[in-house]
């Protein structure tokens, strides 16, 4: 029962990955007992499951995901939010206002207007309906300061690290608050712009070298060295 790849090999859509007793994992599909790649990415197998970590993919909403989005339209009873996904998200006014919503009295654009950034959670989504957002939990809501950076959504897990080790380390070394939207949007809020820049540099490096090993150590080293420079 053969596989046709080396660990972490770069594969393109349609490349034959395995034949026989294997299961199709992320970004793969099966046709007549053969498993093929669906996207360009790095292939690996986990037991009997063949996965491709896509190097280029868009975000598909999943219920419970934390995302960072931009308000694109103020509607009659809510806002349209762009979450960098094929599907536009909706945030209902009733979710934001802690009291019953009166269209005549409440001016929605006073609460959130076009261009505002929000951190929200996907409350519901099925492909027949656009994703609904909620901000009714602590830590969610309008973003007022900080810097935004965009990464390919598939890299977010690497930024988090095993059991959150990577992201905790960055937060600690830079003193920044970092919110990771699973849709590939990251908010970095620090005490000084320099602290924010440092965190951003670290995250960009992770994005570029996400496939390599020993990354956590190298990032730690990068951050410590930069701090020393600042202190000099």
């Amino acid at each position, binding site marked *: 029962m053969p596989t046709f790849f080396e660990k972490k090999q*770069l594969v*393109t*859509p*349609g*490349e*034959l990955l395995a034949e026989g007793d294997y299961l199709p994992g992320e*970004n793969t*599909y099966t*046709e007549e007992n053969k498993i*093929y790649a*669906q*996207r*360009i990415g*790095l292939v690996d197998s986990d037991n009997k499951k063949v996965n491709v970590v*896509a*190097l*280029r*993919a*868009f975000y598909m909403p999943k219920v419970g995901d934390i995302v960072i989005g931009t308000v694109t339209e103020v509607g009659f009873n809510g806002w349209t939010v762009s979450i960098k996904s*094929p*599907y*536009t998200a909706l945030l209902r006014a009733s979710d934001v206002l802690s009291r019953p919503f009166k269209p005549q009295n409440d001016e929605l654009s006073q609460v959130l207007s076009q261009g505002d950034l929000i951190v929200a959670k996907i409350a519901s989504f099925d*492909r*027949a309906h656009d994703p609904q957002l909620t901000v009714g939990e602590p830590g969610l809501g309008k973003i007022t300061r900080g810097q935004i950076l965009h990464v390919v959504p598939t890299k977010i897990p690497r930024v988090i690290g095993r059991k959150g080790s990577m992201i905790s380390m960055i937060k600690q070394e830079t003193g920044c608050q970092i919110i990771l939207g699973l849709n590939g949007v990251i908010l970095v809020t620090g005490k000084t712009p320099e602290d924010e820049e440092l965190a951003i540099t670290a995250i960009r490096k992770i994005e*570029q*070298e996400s*496939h*390599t*090993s*020993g990354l956590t150590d*190298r990032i730690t080293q990068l951050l410590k060295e930069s701090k020393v420079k600042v202190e000099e």
Partner: protein
Amino acid sequence: MNEKPDKLIDKKGIRLDGRKADELRQVKLQVGVLPNADGSAYVEHGKNKILAAAFGPREMHPKHLAQADRMVLRCRYHMAPFSVPERKSPAPSRREVELSKVIRESLEPALFLELYPRTGVDLFIEVLQADGGTRCASITAAALAIADAGVPMRDLVVACAAGKVEDTVVLDLYDAEDKLGVADVPVAYMPSLNAVTLLQMDGILTPDEFQKAVEMAMVGCKKIYEMQKEALKTKYMVVKEVEE
């Protein structure tokens, strides 16, 4: 206006542009050339210069064109007015309308349309310079643009034409051969699935010649397919492991 050549293939079997009967023109592929598109590719095939851009999957505009149960692929094949010897009007010609349709139909089999209902992928193909075989080069570019956009695909789609010039079945006709030759057979193919997704012919061929032309075109397709994979891998070539 060029003079009509006497012979398109000489006694030694060499064509006017120096190629043998089964030789491909030079092909150059580049992925990710347009920063504002979700995916893009640039193809030079012989003297053809083709730019393709993919946007999506995204919300369909106008909304009523969206399909409740599937993603919609829209394709526009368009030739720049300066792409051909006699300036071509920018308005879509009937040929461009037909080619937009057959190119779209050559790419749809590669997509998992049911995965993203109510969305659309817009493909724009611009022929900057044309020299025979533009629909094939367009498909080759379009497939790369779609893959570059991160849209899941069953396989890359690759295309190449074969045909008959004077008495010989040849691969990859350029403009003069297309105009003065006996037949032209463009073929689009998904090699991993052994699937022909575009097939057209104009001219006259015996059934045997037709079979030979299709086989020849598929050999050409497979060669270009390897180049497509290389082009994608080149763009996404990951940084080499840093030495510890």
